[in-house]
């Protein structure tokens, strides 16, 4: 299985109706790695992710997959290589876990093929991978937030794409579930070589789980690279307008950002 893909963004300008949010970004997504986009609220990190995933039409610039513009691919074909889990998907009421995960198979099915053995296997594998087999026949409503998020990721996995975008997959989850989700995504990356690009809020978890960090400020890419190289107190000051001390994470030996507020500073 060839999962080598070159995904490149050049001169990207994007946003909503008369409001430009991304002001010219160039980047290349590192293959088979986990990349995390960090930045302050409203800096455009989510817009960048959505534009790369074709959810927003760019006003200027090129987004290419293996040298071909992503909007030149037939949409189903693109969806077999690039998948996205957006931040607020709609849960149809009364849908079972297996049904929801199965809907991720859409791009692999044609009008006449219907459900094939491959589809059933992919759904089964995805549910097994996310540890949700035991919930397969339950309604989504019966699950907790963390379990639900695992179901959504399983749906994205069932899509079996080599590149997977995730928009804040850990938001609203307890720390336990955040770590669990990020562990599972790391598993996915290591086992299948899936290229993962996600937006995360927690900068320290980003530093721990990312192979590569894209730091975005005011719609521009201001730094990128390995967390250990990129995450400095200057960068944190620049991106988040926050004073901080960077130490080494005693668990993962990655950078750990200790914020400095106005209070409780011993000096």
């Amino acid at each position: 299985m060839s999962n080598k893909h070159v995904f490149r963004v050049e001169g990207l300008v994007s946003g909503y109706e008369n409001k430009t949010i991304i002001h010219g970004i160039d980047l290349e997504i590192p293959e088979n790695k986990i990349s995390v986009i960090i930045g302050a609220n409203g800096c455009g990190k989510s817009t960048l992710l959505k534009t790369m995933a074709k959810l927003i039409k760019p006003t200027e610039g090129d987004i290419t997959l293996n040298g071909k513009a992503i909007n030149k691919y037939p949409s189903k074909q693109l969806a077999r290589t690039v998948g996205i889990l957006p931040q607020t998907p709609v849960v149809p009421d009364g849908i079972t876990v297996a049904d929801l995960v199965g809907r991720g198979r859409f791009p692999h099915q044609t009008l006449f093929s219907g459900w094939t053995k491959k589809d059933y296997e992919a759904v089964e594998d995805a549910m097994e991978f996310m540890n949700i087999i035991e919930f397969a026949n339950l309604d989504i409503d019966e699950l907790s937030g963390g379990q639900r998020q695992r179901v959504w990721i399983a749906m994205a996995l069932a899509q079996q794409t080599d590149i997977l975008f995730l928009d804040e997959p850990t938001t609203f989850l307890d720390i336990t579930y955040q770590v669990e989700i990020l562990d599972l995504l790391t598993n996915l990356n290591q086992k299948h070589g899936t290229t993962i690009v996600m937006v995360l809020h927690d900068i320290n978890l980003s530093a721990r789980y990312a192979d590569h960090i894209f730091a975005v400020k005011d719609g521009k890419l201001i730094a990128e690279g390995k967390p250990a190289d990129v995450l400095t107190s200057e960068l944190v000051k620049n991106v988040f307008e926050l004073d901080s001390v960077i130490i080494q994470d005693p668990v993962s030996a990655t950078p750990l950002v200790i914020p400095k507020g106005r209070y409780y500073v011993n000096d």
Partner: protein
Amino acid sequence: MIKLKSDSSPLDKNDRHVPKHFSIILLAGFILLIVTVIASLVLGARVVSYQELMDGLSFQNVDSYGANVVQKRISRTVFGLCCGAALAISGVLMQTVTRNPLADPSILGVNTGAALFVVAGISFFQISTAGQYIWLALIGASITAVFVFGIGSMGRGGATPIKLVLAGAATSAALSSLVTAIMIPNLYAMDQFRFWQVGSVGSGSWQSIIIFIPFLIVGIMIAFISAPALNALALGDDVATGLGVRPGLLRAFAIGAGVILCGVTTALAGPIGFIGLLATHSMRLLVGSDLRFLIPLSALAGAIILTFSDVAGRLIGSPGELEVGIITAFIGAPILILLAKKSKVRSL
């Protein structure tokens, strides 16, 4: 917190993607359908005998009164089944596209648009036959749908469900005042329109069925073809886009099919309410939200409910008959309230 059900043995892996008891529900549906059809042929102001039924069905002794009645009822029944199925599918499509569990063709203003054109036709062009109604109603329904869709697509995010529903409601209100304005000064139009306005399948002739069938086939085909994509769309536009669906295009297609189905039915039988809601919600409770199963079952349920209502109307109104539109409203309204109260009406 999680009730672990012991129903995830490896044996039923593939069954997970087929609703529980699907085949039983389907079988029960077909049995009910047959019973309803027989009832529709036999019952009415005049109850026919077994011999007359057989004569009518086999086109023997067609001179006898009973056999004649049966033959009339055959076309009426077939017409009723078509109307029921068409309205139910139209309902599923509109509900899915607008992500509004209470969406009915009427919510997008489609019914009112059809009515306006029919009234204008009666009033200004003295139109009075089904063959002419159908085109007027279809044109009216389509223009309204395009208009509502156009307004609903303006602004950020395109044709979102909420904008579609609002545009539909506003358009519907405006159009129905136009209908009244045209009708009130014109007695002839009012008479004609009144007859058409209460939905009825009593006028269902082979001629209307022949007009109906091509539209029904096109509508059903679009519904079946777009079912998997609509399943993806139900997860939100973003997820759907990520799965390779083009939401705008898909919505236009599905609404198109919904408009054709509902427009033609409305043209031929008059506005018949509640079928789209009743059929789809009862089936949603039974088989869940997967449209690959929901669409055919809803069509079956719609056909049964409408035909059954027609029979009930004939019995209650005997020796005359109550129009089916009145019966569906009578059956539909309380059941819907009941469903809503039990909060079992599943939102999309």
